[in-house]
């Protein structure tokens, strides 16, 4: 071998990644080539230089930071687990952010049979699928059976309503094809239902007086990092939408559910009365926090007009149980 050996080849030789024959040839070459022998020695020094880099341990402030983040997660999990009866978040990762986070790629994926089920490690993955399949599901609206049933119910309501109005000498209102007005007692709510409003006025007790705020229903699945953006967006929406008696207590459409199904208005009102602690409620949004249903309540901070207090409460929040999951203060801007 007359040519010099490249540093990469020498480094590979040092790692034992070359064939015996090739390594022997290089060894023989280096006996006669001072330059290659020097390069080989330098490569060893590179490893030594790397090993000699001394960096201090993790600063206590950073340790504290991570510990607080873990404690926050633990608190949120406990609060949500109390609601669902499980002690942990779902393994499939309820929030999209967690699912796409870099660290998860490092986590070995669960396989059939070997997967552990949070909260139910005694059950194999298959049982979990069975459990899931037994959950109640709304029937598909495209099912012919359901469509026939809806059409029949609508026809009965229209005929009965027309008869009722004729008997009372009133003009028949425009009929709708949705069949929403299945409850004839919901006359006052009808206009809002037809307008498919996404907000409602909610009344709550603030320092002995009745105050009004706006409640929203959102499909958003937020976490602590997206919480501030959602809160500010609600504040802006509230500013655009002044509460009025016409949209009171009726909100529509959250994944096909009316708000009456999505949450208990009376409970939300008592929850806001309990949670406000003398602060005006700017908005309340029923959404999902880390995949679990929760209500995000935004208050005007008592400390400064430049800040908003934000509380996340679970669905069990009521006049007697706050079910607080998380609270923080964010800049209003």
């Amino acid at each position, binding site marked *: 071998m007359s040519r010099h050996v*490249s*540093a*990469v080849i020498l*480094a*590979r030789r*040092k*790692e*034992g*990644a070359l064939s015996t024959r090739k390594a022997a040839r290089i060894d023989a070459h280096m006996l006669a080539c001072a330059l290659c022998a020097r390069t080989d*020695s*330098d*490569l*060893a*020094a*590179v*490893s*030594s*230089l*790397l*090993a*000699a*880099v*001394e*960096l*201090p*341990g*993790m*600063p206590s402030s*950073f340790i504290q*930071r*991570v*510990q607080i*983040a*873990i404690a926050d*997660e*633990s608190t949120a*999990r*406990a609060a949500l687990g109390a609601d669902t009866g*499980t002690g*942990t*978040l779902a*393994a499939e*990762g309820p929030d999209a952010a*967690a699912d796409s*986070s*870099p*660290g*998860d790629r*490092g*986590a*070995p*994926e669960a*396989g059939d049979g*070997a*997967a*552990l*089920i*949070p*909260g139910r*490690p005694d059950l194999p993955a298959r049982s979990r699928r069975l459990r899931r399949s037994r959950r109640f599901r709304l029937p598909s609206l495209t099912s012919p059976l359901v469509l026939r049933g809806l059409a029949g119910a609508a026809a009965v309501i229209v005929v009965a309503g027309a008869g009722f109005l004729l008997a009372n000498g009133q003009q028949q209102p425009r009929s709708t094809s949705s069949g929403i007005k299945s409850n004839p007692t919901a006359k006052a709510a009808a206009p809002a239902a037809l307008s498919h409003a996404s907000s409602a006025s909610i009344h709550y007790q603030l320092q002995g007086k009745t105050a009004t705020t706006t409640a929203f229903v959102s499909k958003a699945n937020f976490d602590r990092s997206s919480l501030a953006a959602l809160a500010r967006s609600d504040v802006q929406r509230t500013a655009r939408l002044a509460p009025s008696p016409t949209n009171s207590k009726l909100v529509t459409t959250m994944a096909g559910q009316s708000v009456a199904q999505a949450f208990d208005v009376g409970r939300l009102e008592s929850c806001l009365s309990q949670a406000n602690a003398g602060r005006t409620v700017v908005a309340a949004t029923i959404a999902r926090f880390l995949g679990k249903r929760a209500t995000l309540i935004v208050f005007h901070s008592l400390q400064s007009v430049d800040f908003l207090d934000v509380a996340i409460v679970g669905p069990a929040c009521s006049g007697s149980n706050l079910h607080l999951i998380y609270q923080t203060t964010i800049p209003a801007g």
Partner: protein
Amino acid sequence: MPAADGTAAAVPRPGATRDREEYGDAELLQLHVDGDPDAFGVLFKRHKDRLWAVAVRTLCDPEDAADALQDAMISAFRRAGSFRGDSAVTTWLHRIVVNSCLDRMRRRRSRPEVAAGDERLLDMILSAGAVPDPAHGSEVSMEVMTALRQLPHDQQVALVLVDMLDYPVADAAQVLGVAEGTVKSRCARGRARLLPRLAHLRPAGGSGVVGSADQAEATPDSGQGRRNRFAPESVLPAQDGGDEET
């Protein structure tokens, strides 16, 4: 969950009188999955030094490293239920931290290079007095870290694990999720690339700036080489097979 890290297979119930510090990693993770609010914190406390060592050397910036470590821990917290026990808990945690760091490195590449990270690193080295001779040692360390940062990410991480933290190649391969031969190849290429960048740190005709040539001859996988303070004997427990070299 199989006791991959050699801990007892029997999983205690939450609320048992045993101190959590006495539990093995796999047991702690199982306790966490079962709803124990403190188990994961104990796990973090136990491994934070090694995880931090990986993060700060990989990212060369303490702030970034803290962020990456925090992201990784939250991710591990949430995904603990998907841990199958095929590897040790420490390996799993290391892998999550490394992936978190790699993700940050890729994002960092897409934005203009800032010197703030270097300054923070230097501040940390000097303020902590980690080296006996800060004036000289910190300068060398900074030069090495700066050169290391110029490498492709895969080579950089391989060198951090094998050369800087003295992990056996087999353990590094497990953490990175690649074959041992791949780790060796990445290390070899990385060292070759660093050679011209660090040549000035070695006096002409003399032995290396740090350690003699004899010292340096002890390669990481020989098992006889230098021992880093972050890599005690049990840094990554022996795993299920995987000794073959590809």
